[in-house]
């Protein structure tokens, strides 16, 4: 019994360590965000001597996923892990609600407005009332949508009407 508890604790510690190593893997399109901040790491499993990292893509066509898989392998190899498996799952589908608070703060400091919580604005109705998005530079809410589609799949393009600067918004999903 005591041994079993010791084992479970040891396993927890190793998994925690893997998570902290994965903090070094960033999204190539938004390099201030780690894959942990993004919320795309769904689980880390220890199968005997193998580490399995389970990830889920943000968007179906996210071109960064292959790159992220290679980098997960790289950082774990560097830390001495030998047998590494990266598994991609589609369900449950990723949502911006999984982004960490720390991730949202990093985004804002980087000049990208962080996602509002995924609410009713994610509907197909045309010409909806615009979401109030705060300008990441001057904090004004006096902003407007330029395009629902921005520099990458996950962003929309806005402009601040006070400081006049255009900015990216990490849109709710």
């Amino acid at each position, binding site marked *: 019994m005591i041994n079993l508890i010791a084992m479970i604790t040891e396993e927890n510690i190793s998994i925690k360590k893997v998570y902290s190593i994965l903090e070094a893997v960033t999204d190539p399109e938004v390099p201030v965000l780690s894959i942990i901040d993004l919320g795309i790491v769904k689980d880390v499993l220890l199968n005997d001597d193998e580490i399995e990292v389970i990830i889920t893509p943000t*968007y179906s*066509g996210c071109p960064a996923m292959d790159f992220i898989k290679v980098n997960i392998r790289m950082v774990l190899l560097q830390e001495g892990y030998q047998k590494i498996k990266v598994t991609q799952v*589609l369900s449950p*589908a990723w949502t911006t609600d999984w982004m960490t608070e720390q991730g949202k703060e990093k985004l804002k400091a980087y000049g990208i407005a962080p996602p509002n919580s995924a609410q009713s604005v994610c509907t197909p109705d045309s010409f*909806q009332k615009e979401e109030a998005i705060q300008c990441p530079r001057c904090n004004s809410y006096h902003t407007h949508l330029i395009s*629902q589609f921005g520099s990458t799949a996950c962003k929309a393009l806005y402009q601040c009407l006070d400081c006049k600067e255009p900015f990216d918004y990490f849109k709710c999903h």
Partner: protein
Amino acid sequence: MNQESIINYTIHLADNALIMGHRNSEWCGHGPILEQDIALSNISLDLIGQARNYYQYAATVIGNNTTEDSLAYLRDAGDFKNCLLVEQPNGDWAQTILKQFFFSVYQYYLYQQLQYNNDDQLKAIAIKSLKEVTYHVRWSSEWVIRLGDGTEESKTRLLKALDELWMFTGELFEPASYELNMNVDFDLLKEEWTKKIQSVFEEATIAMPAKNNWHQSGGKKGKHSEHLGYILAEMQFVQRAYPNSAW
């Protein structure tokens, strides 16, 4: 649902998304303004991503070293199961928009049903794709309204596009044999699709075409218009000329 229907149905969904995505990618660098060029390229990316998810699933079910790439790059036109609508030429901006609008609304209501499918993977892909398609429906319907309720020229062009494309919408609701046992209610799909098209057309101040017009079908069964051959010639060229090349 037998295995053969699942394979054919999954490939059909993949081909629809791939050919539509490829057509949109032809606009990359040619859009009327930068933001709309980027919008179409992003929609392309979403659709090609959805196609990849479906091809990967079909490849797993088929086995025998089949891959997503062999399905996309090494089949000929007669094996493609996409509907005729998606392979139609882009034409002008109005035709591109209207084609996207018809297709996105179709995908939206189809995925609404597939998100409850008893095949776990078809269900997972539908739930994931639905979030993306929601943005596509919003974007394309706003453009239909702008063009229809815009200037005389924009309205004339939209009506011309309607004339070109309407005959290809009937096929969406005419199930091929592999669609029959996939638990999709085609009557409901058609009803919801028509209702949405009608409400956007009303805002765009254009009239719905007469009910039960003649329509052209065949694509889902592998009988395509001449356009698909040209699309495949361009899309598959590198893989055919340099087999197994990767980058």
